[in-house]
């Protein structure tokens, strides 16, 4: 059709241009890694990626939790999606999820704890919790109506809320916003990560469900 007549050469040119740019990229004269290395012992965690995510650029992660929450708000405001067909879970799925869900939760806890010193951290642990939640939802389990109101909403905002509370708390005791005093930095980071893991897991599972649990269309 006529559109691909001018589209393909344009895209090929774009590809070549970007490829050439990537290959001819100059090495930055003073990169960030050197500065990062000599700030690591003050950062409270020894895994550099977690240090950058939670301590040096913690503000990014705060907005990140906001993005997750807003996506869920958008999904719930759209609402009206037919709930997952209540077909009874097959035998295989039932047995598998009975074995897998406890393991997933255990691994998520381990990833959260090990994130301070080795690859792991809040987002990976949270997504594992989300996977456990998806498995449960597939088996037809639904959150009880009693706690699908405020308790669920509190769990969902726990990540962003803990970030904001910790940040302003540190601000009030005289530091900058989100400035962890180095002796207590490790514990603070782990606390924030734990809250973030819980709310990421709940958010991802709720997004999989798609509609308000126990809400109007129940």
């Amino acid at each position, binding site marked *: 059709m006529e*559109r*691909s007549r001018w*589209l*393909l050469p344009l*895209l*090929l040119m*774009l*590809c070549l241009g*970007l*490829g050439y740019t*990537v*290959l001819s*990229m100059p*090495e930055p004269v003073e*990169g*960030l*890694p050197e500065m*990062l290395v000599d700030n690591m012992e003050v950062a409270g965690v020894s895994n*550099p*990626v977690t*240090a*950058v*995510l939670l301590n040096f*650029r913690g503000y*990014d*992660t705060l907005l*990140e939790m906001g*993005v*997750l929450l*807003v*996506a*869920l708000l*958008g*999904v719930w405001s*759209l609402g*009206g*999606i037919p709930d997952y067909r209540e077909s009874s879970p097959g035998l295989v799925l039932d047995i598998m999820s009975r074995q897998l869900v406890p393991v997933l939760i255990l691994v998520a806890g381990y990833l959260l704890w090990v994130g301070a010193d080795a690859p792991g*951290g809040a*987002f990976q642990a949270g997504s594992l919790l989300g996977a456990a939640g998806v498995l449960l939802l597939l088996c037809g389990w639904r959150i009880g109506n009693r706690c699908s109101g405020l308790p669920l909403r509190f769990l969902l905002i726990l990540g962003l809320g803990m970030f904001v509370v910790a940040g302003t708390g540190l601000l009030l005791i005289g530091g900058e916003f989100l400035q962890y005093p180095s002796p207590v930095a490790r514990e603070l980071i782990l606390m924030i990560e734990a809250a973030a893991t819980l709310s*990421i897991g709940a958010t*991802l599972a709720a*997004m*999989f469900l*798609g509609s308000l649990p126990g809400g109007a269309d129940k």
Partner: protein
Amino acid sequence: MSYVYLYALLGVSLFVLGLNALIVHAHLLRKILAVNVMSTGVFLVLVALSSRNEEVLPDPVPHAMVITGIVVSVSATALALILMLKVNRATGKNELPDRGRD
């Protein structure tokens, strides 16, 4: 010419591949797949260029940026999928009504 540039070029080609699919395909689910492939391409460029000199450890800042980017793209994908279902229920079709040029 270390292997890193191979992956950076792969990232650029995934970006352009996704862009082409986003424009050409009309089905909304394919467009969402195309956006995901494009973002994977951008993340590949980000991480590949971070370990250009082998002797020093790779620079962790792009790694943190990519993890943030992955979580942003999963939340955007979730919203896009639910919106696609609503569009399908409202218009009975899986495409955007008019020429839908992106």
